[in-house]
């Protein structure tokens, strides 16, 4: 079995002692890669917690700092920032209902509800532990199955991808807490918002109102921060009752035995779903948490608990999120093709260090490859060690009076949004979407299906049109290709399953809360 010798090589790379000239103490051997991994995880957690400041901006800024390091150490640190940020993102989602990234939208649904019920610590704890489990499993998947799984990424052409997105839309229906019709309307509105910007094929400006800043479309963080973050502040200022619940009772800090029992299988299933979706090109990892949430809600004995603080609704998606973040490295490491924007940045980081990613990295730079794989596992352990003690601190932050809390959230959001493109116009757009979010609340629309529609819409239109160009306009391409046809069948079955209970219960329950 080669795997063990490879992993041994990885461990020896990560644990390697390098003589470093420490000021005052002089030359001494230090496990440099472990330290870098720790620093990366710490920075990642920090930026994950800060709304808006994402791994892309941070990795870009830290690139020059890594110039002096050897490539393995540099990449270990940058990778740590990436998955650290995935960890930290759930903290903001749970505590203040702001999803920093598309993958933590689902966490706001039940995570923030748990926080409102005084179970913030439990939610944060289960998110950290679930993520740790998922990270460990995903690392093993990369090590053992990375190469064969690469074929999966190549199996997914535009037609298959489109059908997968159709399946994703069905998840969105299940996300809804209240009226199914209003949820559908929000999905379509999200899809409509996703068409803003330059047309892919002709380059024409669509619905940009002549604003150059909209020609690349609406940024996800801008939309999410406005609809969730700012609208949530407005809602809380108007109804002090709901927000005081958060401050009132703070229950236990860590999950109980009962919580673990309820979360175990959701974590396992979430890990599986996230790991598979993470491998797909074009940011399939985004779908992981949504898929996991849908699954948990569907198989739950009491689906009504979802959206009202069900622990499975945090445990499953958070595991899926982290598993996907990890397996997204597979196409990068084995094919040399980045599946999302952060991975594209990792390519940049590698090229700056003179390593051009491609199918040969594994054989040409085995220490780099296996060192990175092992560092992921070590990094997940560190994240657990960093995050569990922080749970107490985060929960204490909830005790800050709201009159001070909301200006602080505002300023963090503003700086975060500005830092995405260093563009003040983005901050203005966020204010606009804050207003939209306020209107939606008043009409009791839910923003989560809108955001999912938005995320899927961008990918869906691209893949739909690519597939139709390649098939020269023939829609049969979606059913002639077996993988695509299979996905569509699954989507259809899921749609029926999702709608059946509502239909049976009669119209009364379908269209009202």
């Amino acid at each position, binding site marked *: 079995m080669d795997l063990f010798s490879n992993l041994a090589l990885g461990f020896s790379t990560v644990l390697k002692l390098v003589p470093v000239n420490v000021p005052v103490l002089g030359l001494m051997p230090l496990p440099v890669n472990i330290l870098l991994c720790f620093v990366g995880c710490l920075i990642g957690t*920090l*930026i994950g917690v*800060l709304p808006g*400041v994402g791994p892309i*901006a941070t990795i870009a*800024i830290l690139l020059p700092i890594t110039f002096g390091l050897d490539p393995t150490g540099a990449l270990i640190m940058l990778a740590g920032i990436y998955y650290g940020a995935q960890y930290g993102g759930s903290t903001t989602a749970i505590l203040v209902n702001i999803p920093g990234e598309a993958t933590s939208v689902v966490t706001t649904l039940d995570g923030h509800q748990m926080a409102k019920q005084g179970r913030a610590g439990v939610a944060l704890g289960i998110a950290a532990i679930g993520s740790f489990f998922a990270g460990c499993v995903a690392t093993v998947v990369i090590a053992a199955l990375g190469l064969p799984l690469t074929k999966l990424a190549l199996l997914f052409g535009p037609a298959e991808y489109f059908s997968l997105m159709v399946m994703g839309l069905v998840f969105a229906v299940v996300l809804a807490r209240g009226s199914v019709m*209003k949820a*559908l*309307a929000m999905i*379509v*509105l999200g*899809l*409509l918002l996703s*068409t803003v910007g330059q*047309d892919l094929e*002709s380059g*024409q400006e*669509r*619905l940009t*109102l*002549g604003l150059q800043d909209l020609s690349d479309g609406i940024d996800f963080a801008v939309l999410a921060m406005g609809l969730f973050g*700012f609208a949530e*502040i*407005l809602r809380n*200022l*108007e109804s002090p009752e709901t927000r005081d619940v958060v401050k009132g009772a703070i229950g236990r800090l860590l999950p109980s035995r009962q919580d673990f029992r309820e979360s175990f299988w959701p974590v396992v299933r979430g890990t599986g779903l996230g790991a598979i979706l993470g491998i797909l090109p074009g940011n399939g990892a985004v779908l992981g948490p949504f898929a996991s949430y849908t699954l948990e809600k569907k198989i739950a004995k009491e689906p009504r608990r979802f959206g009202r603080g069900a622990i499975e609704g945090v445990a499953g998606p958070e595991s899926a999120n982290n598993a996907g973040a990890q397996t997204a490295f597979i196409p990068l490491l084995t094919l040399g093709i980045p599946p999302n924007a952060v991975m594209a940045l990792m390519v940049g980081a590698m090229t700056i260090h003179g390593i051009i990613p491609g199918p040969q990295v594994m054989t040409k730079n085995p220490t780099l490859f296996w060192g990175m794989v092992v560092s992921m596992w070590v990094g997940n352990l560190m994240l657990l060690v960093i995050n569990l003690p922080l749970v107490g601190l985060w929960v204490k932050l909830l005790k800050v*009076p*709201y*009159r*001070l809390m909301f*200006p*602080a959230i*505002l*300023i*963090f*959001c*503003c*700086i975060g949004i*500005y*830092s995405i493109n*260093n563009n*003040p*116009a983005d*901050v203005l757009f*966020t*204010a606009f979407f*804050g*207003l939209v979010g306020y*209107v939606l*609340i*008043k*009409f*009791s*629309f839910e923003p989560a299906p809108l955001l999912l529609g938005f995320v899927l819409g961008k990918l869906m*239109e691209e893949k739909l049109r690519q597939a*139709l160009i390649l098939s020269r*306009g*023939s*829609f049969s391409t979606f059913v002639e290709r077996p993988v695509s046809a299979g996905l569509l069948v699954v989507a259809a079955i899921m749609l029926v399953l999702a709608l059946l209970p509502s239909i049976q219960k009669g119209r009364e329950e379908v269209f*009202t809360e």
Partner: protein
Amino acid sequence: MTGMDEGVARPGGALRVRNPQDAGAGLFLLAVAAFALWKGADLPLGTLRSMGAGMLPTSLAVLVGAFGLALIGFSLVQDGPGLDRWRLRGPVFILGSVVVFALLIRTVGLAVAGPVSMLVSCFATDEVRWKEAIIFSLGMTAFCILLFKVMLSLPIPVLTLSLPIPLRF
């Protein structure tokens, strides 16, 4: 909007709004759809087989409008909650403070934009204690400079003077 604030409508009556919240929601969707159709009117639709730039925006806008109509339709036959109270104070000062931040960040920098926008947002609530708010906003700004500029070294202007306001539209 507040004129329809009559709560759950009584049964009977041929055509009366029995679910004002959904009726409002439907009107909102109709407005969005109309706006998108108007702004996207110039875009070529193409055909289903070879889509133009306007195909998806237009058909999605029509769908949004259809949901709006459906919501209005159901609001006439089913009882539901009344409209929420709309308040201006929150949106004006909270979103206003964000706009202030956007206008100031590149003209004078974070050291000024931070406290000013935070203080503007404080007008949104009666709970504010001004002395505390001023100290807090200055402290937070210093903390943010330390965190974002010094620790994360994001390229954020801390203190500059550049006019006119560099917004590019």
